[in-house]
């Protein structure tokens, strides 16, 4: 259980012990919170003491009476707002004086409780404050995590973009300095490699454009009824020249003529990325089978290949951005390492799931399951 620290500032001992009694066994829970919230109570009798506590201890909530023997509650409020604005202050106003309550909220009190109050009134006030504190904490945490993810993405991206630039620049320098002599033929391999790296960079840029298109928000206004088979067919046709080159056959099984409500751009990216992987990481004479199957209220998009397969370790990292399988067999295959992470993101966006089954050396099967 999470505990919030509540300080009660009131010169009447009866009020202080009453508040303690009511809140000691009280917990707040909401369906969206992982854990219940309980309360630790500190009691003080004067404004001066309250300020000392605020200075020396971590406090989440202050229940503050205005009429105190020394300095007034409003002065304590002022001090807190100036020095510890993250503390939430609830004013306890003696005779439900509206004027004071308004003045206090204008001066930064979060809320007020009219005195005398029933245990239930106190509890519901505390419930509100707790919810507010919880949500404030979550928002902060999410902003921070979002920033970290973006930062990580950018730093890896800059690495991925700089590596090919360095390679190409290196080859150009070697040629400029004529390290291999005057015969241009002796630089053939370096020129080929440079062109390969340019191609790799171009692929990366195309994938980044895909990423910006998805934008990770469901744009339902772009949703329309789309025939999955048709999109799959278009994608296969686009990939065919490359498949013929690699002697890989692509087939489509679509017996049910499935229609799905979705953004056609998103679905196209799913097919393009899965099918092109199936061809790229295949063997000569291999196959890629695309199957569209309807079960219950779900669409199964299955792309099976007879390619090089994946180890368990590789499958686990497969959907991470910029992850690429590195082996003797994949050495000359260019790729950005973004394709599958994009497919995963789209599948998440549609509340779907993605599964991968693979046997090293025999092939891999991807299944994207989307609700209809």
């Amino acid at each position, binding site marked *: 259980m999470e505990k919030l620290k509540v300080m009660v500032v009131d010169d009447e001992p009866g009020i202080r012990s009453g508040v303690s009694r009511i809140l000691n066994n009280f917990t707040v829970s909401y369906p969206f919170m992982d854990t219940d919230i309980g309360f630790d109570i500190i009691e003080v009798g004067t404004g001066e003491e309250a300020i000392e506590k605020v200075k020396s201890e971590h406090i989440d909530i202050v229940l503050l009476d205005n009429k105190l023997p020394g300095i007034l509650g409003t002065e304590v409020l002022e001090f807190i707002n100036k020095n510890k604005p993250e503390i939430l202050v609830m004013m306890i106003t003696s005779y439900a004086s509206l004027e004071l309550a308004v003045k206090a909220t204008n001066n930064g009190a979060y809320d007020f409780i009219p005195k005398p109050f029933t245990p239930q009134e106190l509890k519901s006030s505390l419930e509100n404050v707790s919810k507010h504190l919880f949500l404030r904490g979550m928002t902060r945490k999410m902003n921070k995590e979002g920033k970290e993810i973006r930062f990580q993405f950018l730093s890896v991206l*800059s690495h991925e973009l*700089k590596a090919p630039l*360095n390679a190409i620049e290196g080859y150009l*320098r070697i040629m400029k300095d004529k390290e291999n002599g005057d015969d241009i033929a002796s630089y053939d391999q370096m020129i080929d490699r440079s062109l390969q790296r340019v191609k790799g960079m171009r692929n990366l840029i195309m994938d980044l454009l895909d990423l910006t298109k998805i934008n990770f928000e469901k744009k339902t206004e772009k949703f329309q009824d789309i025939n999955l088979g048709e999109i799959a067919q278009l994608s296969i046709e686009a990939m065919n020249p490359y498949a013929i080159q690699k002697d890989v056959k692509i087939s489509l099984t679509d017996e049910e003529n499935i229609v799905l409500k979705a953004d056609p751009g998103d679905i196209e990216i799913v097919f393009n990325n899965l099918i092109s992987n199936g061809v790229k990481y295949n063997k000569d004479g291999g196959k890629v089978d695309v199957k569209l199957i309807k079960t219950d209220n779900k669409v199964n998009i299955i792309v099976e290949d007879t390619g090089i397969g994946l180890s368990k370790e590789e499958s686990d990292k497969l959907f991470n951005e910029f992850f690429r399988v590195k082996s003797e067999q994949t050495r000359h295959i260019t790729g950005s390492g973004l394709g599958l992470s994009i497919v995963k993101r789209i599948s998440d966006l549609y509340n779907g799931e993605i599964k991968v089954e693979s046997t090293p050396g025999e092939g891999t099967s991807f299944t994207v399951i989307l609700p209809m």
Partner: protein
Amino acid sequence: MADIKKTVLIADDDEDYLFQMKMYVESFGFNVITADNQKEAEVIIQNTKLDLAIFDLMMENDDSGFILCYKMKRKHPEVPIILATAVASETGISFGVDTDSDKKWIKADLYLEKGIRKDQLHKEINKLLKI
């Protein structure tokens, strides 16, 4: 005496960078052994007498270069190491081996940003080998 060539290990998963570094370092008159992944480099560190090592930072792990530095210094504390990476300082990730606190955790003798010129590389290597 002069004909005993010094041996340099270069580990990098970018085959083009590896090719270019090998070409340069060989042209400086060294023997070059290459590894294109961390695991292979670890085996070479255990079995080979080396005079210098150049490690890429990010290979199969994001911190492959750091791990190799540690393993190398444990086995051959006297052999100098250059850590090379393309991670740009403009992303905010920047580190060097200039301060004492850096030296405590980065077990490399020199940190290089990739794309260094040939003559500069030659100078840095000679400095580390005290040639």
